[in-house]
């Protein structure tokens, strides 16, 4: 009954930013229901999607994520009443910015997964993993970081010093 094991040349890194009340619980349900999905995803738990700063998504891409998933409660079901609405607005604007910067938006997914939707969690994770696998590794941000491209542009010694002071 086990699905045939597939070997891939590229295993993408997927980071999921999830809220604790809906999607984290939904992922727990997928576990208690013994559903199977690709092991590429790493979860970071937040109280609410409203807590997720777009900077975290940038940081994840910079640190080696090939795909990022943001998932919370369905609209209207937020444990904190309105956090997911704020998140939705914030990410609608942020997507446009990422697109402008040149990040393929296919690598970034937003979804609503409730605590009762273990199956949907599996679907969302599997779909994103397979999509990103087809796209190959995300290099742009990593290379930028490696080349220290940004700090190299700064000529002033005091600015350079200030920049280096950033951990």
């Amino acid at each position: 009954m086990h699905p045939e094991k597939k070997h891939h040349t590229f295993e993408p890194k997927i980071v999921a930013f999830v809220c604790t009340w809906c999607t984290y619980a939904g992922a727990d349900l997928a576990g208690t229901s013994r559903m199977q999905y690709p092991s590429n995803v790493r979860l970071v738990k937040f109280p609410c999607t409203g807590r997720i700063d777009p900077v975290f998504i940038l940081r994840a891409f910079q640190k080696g994520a090939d795909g990022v998933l943001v998932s919370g409660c369905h609209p209207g079901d937020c444990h904190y009443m309105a956090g997911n609405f704020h998140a939705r607005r914030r990410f609608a604007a942020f997507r446009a910015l990422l697109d402008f910067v040149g990040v393929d938006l296919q690598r970034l997914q937003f979804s609503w997964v409730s605590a009762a939707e273990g199956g949907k969690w599996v679907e969302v994770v599997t779909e994103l993993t397979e999509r990103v696998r087809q796209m190959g590794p995300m290099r742009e941000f990593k290379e930028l970081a490696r080349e220290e491209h940004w700090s190299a542009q700064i000529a002033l010694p005091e600015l350079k010093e200030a920049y280096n002071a950033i951990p």
Partner: protein
Amino acid sequence: MSRIGVFVCHCGENISRTVDVEAVARAAAALPGVAHACDYKYMCSDPGQNLLKKAVAEHKLDGVVVAACSPRMHEKTFRAAVKAAGMNPFLCEMANIREHCSWVHEDRAAATAKAKDIVRMLVERVKHDKRLAPITVPVTKRALVIGGGIAGIQAALDIADCGHEVLLVERDPSIGGHMAQLSETFPTLDCSQCIMTPKMVDVANHPQIRLLTYSEIERVEGYIGNFSVTIRKKARSVIETKCTGCGVCMSKCPQKKIPNSFDCNLGTRPAIYVPFPQAVPNIPVIDRDNCTYFKSGKCGVCQKVCGPGAVDYTQQDELITEAVGAVVVATGFDLYDIGPKPAGSPIEGYGEFGYGTIPDVIDGMTFERLASASGPTGGKIVRPSDGQEPKQVVFIQCVGSRAREKGISYCSKICCMYTAKHTMLYHHKVHDGQAYVFFMDARTPGKSYDEFWRRAIEEEEAVYIRGMVSRLYQKGEKIVVMGSDVHVGVQVEIEADLVVLATAVQPRSGADTLAQKLGISYDNYHFYSEAHAKLRPVECATAGIYLAGACQGAKDIPDTVSQASAAAAKVMTLFSKDQLERDPVVARVNERFCVGCLACKKVCPYGAVEEKEIRDRQGNLVKVVAAVNPGVCGGCGTCQATCPSKSVELDGYTDEQIMAMIDTL
């Protein structure tokens, strides 16, 4: 350098079957800052917890990662354990390598690699954990109970008997709910009124219960221990303090042709009415939509005949705001109105059963009123169309329930039993009558339930036919029921005098709106969701709100009463302390960096952010900053993500902690 302890759990074989736990422990031991790492069969067991406590002392740990199940399962357990060992509990984190790893991946190598990653993420997080102290908030020792059916009554009485004040809010003019409508109750066949009305009177007479009937919840603010509830007391048009309940107004009201909804519209009532004679409070209400005075300005008979002068046509809705510490939601159920499909409803109707068009096709509650001694027929079972005694009655079960194609897939739980009861009530009253029941399965789990059902068949001569009914149609005075008997494999046609449909139990209309006011969650059918299906069945995920009765799922009376008492016990547990300890996951403002833009105030769903003026010693205003009231803060962190100067921080989810986790990628 941190001194972190990592404890990897086998969870019997649940984790170790797919994750090489020893390898995970070895990998953890090699991480910078980890002073101790080990694995154990059951970390949550007593010896497992002792191992943890001993290691905390022995290795002088300043952070603990337990790699085991979901934090939703055992975070409290392990935090309590490290606390007992003298460590701040908020320095203990759980790495979820069961629900999020071993149970969802079969490949041992991949699962082990993922488990190592998860542990590493949490180890980095723990390094940035701060010692937090629980927040204490005062508890208002008053409870609000929403709904005055048997669930609400039981919960209110239990809490009030414990000496706490209770506000009982009921939407209808009288408490009693559905149980007051029933004739007799299964499996004992004792009269519902006889056991219900004394409880209603107890509520009315209890010094600790304040009863607000004909009232609805308008607004709920605040949090556990400190809710502020606004209640709309609808205009009764009768001054409660003056009315003596003599009933002269009702007997003199010239408008007497209004269908009585308490009797499922079988009888009629006047425009000024109490829903039923045993109503509590026994104070009438004017149905303004049907009252001649309110419609045309003429009449005013009730005001003229009222001795104490209690009738007041100018009364307005009144808004009352009350402080309570806990809320019990007991809003109950409605029966599925199985007529034509309602507009905009995802649920299909049952047009083929002729409900609403054939007068002698009725639902179970209507049959209860027919059989009830206090009902419109005085307990005589007759056909609504011509008042004749029906000699052949067909009962159809699972109408609406367990019908996925119709939109409801759950079992309504009470119909098998009440249909068996109906056949008995019918047999007791119409000795030469015959009851037929079409059923899918008979579900009779419950004390003395199966015996009761067997009795309906073996002693009370009900004929049970396993199979569904496809169509009903009127033929002269009879209703032809076309169904199948799947045991014999034949089509069955019965000419019935009366057809009773066991329609599905649904949450009360407006259940979703109330849930949104309370900030509690509900499922697709609008049944309220409990915090945990097995271990926290009467609590909502929203702290301080508890559930009782059929608003949480279809239930019979014994289950409802048990759940109501359980909810009351939870409220009393909360009220047993003067101060409540809350998780300190709340936002804090760094006043040095805050520029006072107050974007956080705009996004805060709790209204927890206030403006604070900072003044120098001379009293000159230096600047205005945001300040978070930790008692009100719910801990969502939306403010932190919104703050442009990064001067709000959510304890437990600081930027450092999140960044440290991301940086392990």
